[in-house]
């Protein structure tokens, strides 16, 4: 169906000024896709130059339609050379090419593409053909540019190369040249001892061997002197879709349970398909290698989709590696599933390698057995927390979480607190979307200090609005410690403090003890472990602006600041300081942070100066 094809996409030869008409130049070769095909070679109308401008109409070179022999029909003289050179932009090296087509009705000339068209390049020298004695053995044997060939697998064998250089043979008939293919005996290539032609002996199979690295040897005999030249002779085998997809290890069924991970995009199960071919190529693959979720349960059609990810791999064959393709088919959630859903279902996916020509079929059926289990919301029996009497607004007291909440994804649980007595309410709760937990914090510092509110009871309610499910648990809060009045002149935010002493003397928004905490960094350049003052070094800074810190910029600007950072630093992904130099302190109202190294010499000098005075 494909027709004939060239065994190379480019040919090279030298041209000299004033070579006579009738000089043979080279052979082009076409191989057959089906027995009985006969090539008919035609040349394109123009000669092309360096960057493919049309240089001139081709009046000089002709091809023999049946043999593929290119020859000079008319001598190329010096005037022609100059004319072509000027049209080529005056480049010192004149390389021209023309196009050879396989079909008798040439395609548009701008579309010269293998397999139906090949380019023949000529390096055109502004001298006459050199004296035979001056030619080196390498020049007598092989063209300048390396030989390389492409042969399709499963196609009739045939001749694909002709070794001798025709102009050399034409001008220097006294030099004897013989060719041989090394390592060719066991391989499907033949170059008979006295022959100059190379052919395949039988059809090639890419799945057996993809590349043949042969060596061509040439023996030049001038009088009694003999010399050998060797060049690489690589042959690449082109693939076609002659292998059906299979299951590696025969596994065509995958089972999966959907429970805590219910988010859209979750991969539920994966099945792998192997195909020994590397066609269709990646650009065509998705169109030619189709998959269909077979209809059954209409709910499943909406909830699941199949994702196809093909990948090239290497498999061993005959002691060498050849390329092959593995296709991973992933069953993916198309949307988040409600926690109350409880089903068992079987899904069948039809995979079709539509390029496969047989024998047999290119169709496979993948089976997925999926159980979707419900999630029951449950809170541990009782919570009990204590809070320091001196705790400040937004101080974190603890976390509440339904069972298995760490594993959840795509499940949205909201937490609420119901106080048992309406006049003593201290706590608030924020729900974190990332880990489905609730963070308890101090919401009312005045009530905290009232002596009658020393022991409080709450009910924690976890609620999934989509499934209308909820869970409850009692929570006991005890107020401990004594209230110590705030030192005067302390800032609202702990992060403002730049020195350890002033940090630990003051409290700030979010501190559970009523005192800020100092984090001493390692002091090594720009580091994530920079020195800073925060309400609670366990939660701030940790490089993550959590739901509670997000409530007020004064709690932890180190994690949450959106503004400018002055001094050596690395900014956080979206906000905050990822790494800082020395001590970082912040002015949240000004939306600014400063990072600079601890100048330990400063206070030392002050004291020294005072002593001297």
């Amino acid at each position, binding site marked *: 169906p494909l027709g004939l094809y060239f065994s190379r996409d480019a040919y090279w030869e030298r041209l000299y000024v004033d070579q006579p008409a009738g000089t043979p130049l080279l052979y082009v070769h076409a191989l057959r896709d089906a027995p009985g095909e006969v090539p008919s070679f035609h040349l394109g109308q123009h000669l092309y130059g360096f960057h493919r401008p049309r240089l001139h109409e081709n009046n000089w070179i002709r091809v023999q339609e049946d043999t593929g022999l290119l020859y000079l029909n008319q001598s190329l003289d010096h005037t022609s050379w100059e004319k072509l050179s000027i049209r080529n932009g005056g480049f010192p090296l004149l390389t021209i090419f023309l196009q050879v087509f396989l079909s008798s009705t040439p395609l548009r000339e701008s579309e010269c593409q293998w397999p139906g068209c090949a380019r023949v390049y000529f390096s055109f020298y502004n001298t006459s053909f050199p004296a035979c004695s001056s030619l080196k053995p390498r020049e007598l044997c092989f063209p300048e540019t390396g030989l390389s060939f492409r042969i399709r697998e499963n196609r009739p064998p045939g001749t694909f190369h002709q070794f001798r250089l025709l102009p050399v043979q034409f001008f220097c008939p006294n030099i004897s040249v013989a060719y041989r293919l090394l390592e060719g005996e066991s391989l499907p290539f033949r170059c008979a001892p006295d022959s100059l032609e190379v052919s395949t002996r039988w059809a090639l199979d890419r799945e057996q061997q993809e590349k043949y690295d042969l060596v061509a040897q040439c023996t030049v005999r001038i009088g009694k002197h003999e010399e050998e030249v060797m060049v690489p002779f690589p042959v690449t085998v082109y693939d076609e879709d002659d292998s059906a997809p299979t299951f590696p290890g025969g596994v065509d069924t995958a089972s999966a349970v959907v429970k805590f991970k219910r988010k859209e995009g979750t991969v539920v199960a994966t099945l792998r398909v192997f195909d020994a071919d590397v066609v269709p190529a990646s650009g065509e693959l998705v169109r030619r290698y189709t998959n269909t979720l077979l209809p059954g349960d209409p709910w499943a059609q909406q909830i699941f989709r199949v994702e196809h990810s093909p990948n090239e791999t290497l498999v061993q064959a005959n002691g060498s590696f050849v390329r092959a393709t593995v296709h991973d088919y992933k069953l993916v959630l198309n949307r988040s599933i409600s926690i109350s859903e409880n089903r068992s279902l079987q899904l069948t996916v039809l995979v079709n390698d539509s390029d496969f020509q047989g024998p047999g079929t290119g169709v496979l059926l993948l089976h997925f057995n999926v159980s979707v289990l419900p999630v029951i919301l449950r809170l541990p029996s009782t919570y009990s927390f204590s809070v320091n009497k001196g705790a400040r607004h937004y101080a974190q007291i603890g976390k509440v979480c339904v069972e298995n909440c760490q594993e959840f994804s795509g499940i949205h649980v909201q937490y609420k607190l119901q106080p048992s007595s309406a006049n003593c309410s201290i706590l608030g709760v924020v729900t974190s979307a990332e880990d489905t937990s609730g963070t308890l914090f101090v919401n009312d510092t005045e009530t905290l200090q009232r002596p009658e509110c020393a022991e409080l009871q709450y009910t924690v309610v976890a609620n999934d609005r989509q499934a209308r499910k909820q869970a409850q648990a009692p929570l006991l809060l005890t107020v401990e410690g004594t209230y110590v009045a705030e030192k005067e002149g302390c800032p609202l935010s702990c992060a403002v403090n730049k020195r350890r002493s002033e940090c630990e003397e003051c409290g700030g928004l979010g501190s559970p003890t009523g005192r800020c905490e100092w984090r001493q960094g390692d002091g090594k*350049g*720009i580091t994530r472990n920079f020195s800073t003052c925060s309400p609670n070094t366990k939660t701030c800074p940790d490089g993550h602006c959590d739901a509670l810190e997000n409530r007020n910029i004064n709690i932890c600007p180190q994690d949450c600041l959106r503004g*400018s950072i002055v*001094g*050596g630093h*690395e900014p956080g992904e979206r906000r905050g300081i990822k790494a800082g*130099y*020395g001590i970082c302190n912040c002015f949240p109202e000004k939306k600014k942070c400063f990072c600079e*190294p601890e100048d330990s010499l400063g206070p030392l000098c002050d004291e020294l100066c005072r002593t001297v005075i």
Partner: protein
Amino acid sequence: MKLWDVVAVCLVLLHTASAFPLPAANMPEDYPDQFDDVMDFIQATIKRLKRSPDKQMAVLPRRERNRQAAAANPENSRGKGRRGQRGKNRGCVLTAIHLNVTDLGLGYETKEELIFRYCSGSCDAAETMYDKILKNLSRNRRLASDKVGQACCRPIAFDDDLSFLDDNLVYHILRKHSAKRCGCI
């Protein structure tokens, strides 16, 4: 003007500095009818130039003029610090220095370099009545703190951002790190 006139003007300007009369041999004699006109023009031009040496600049191209002005008045050559004022001190001006990024003391480890520009110089010339009164009050100890705000030579605009790659192949951007214009503020 005819082509010859243009050539003549150029010649005149080239020779003004030496003030020698133009050698007649340099002049092609292909245009005898125009020759007298040209000589008149040259003489008139020379007279005008001698009368007012400042006018010479009006004839020169703009770039040349600026260069001459800069050479005559080096104080003003850089920046727009204190335009055209001759104060007691060198005014508030922009100064450039070539540095390694590591010299900035920001903790970055890199081999990159930069041109750092900063503002320096006195701001005496920018004094206002307000500054005078503040000075007098602090001298007479009528103000508790003697650190009253004086005009400072500070950047009023910053250079473009500078980005560089550090030794760990992380990019950093310095913003507002170098002055572009200076002013007394």
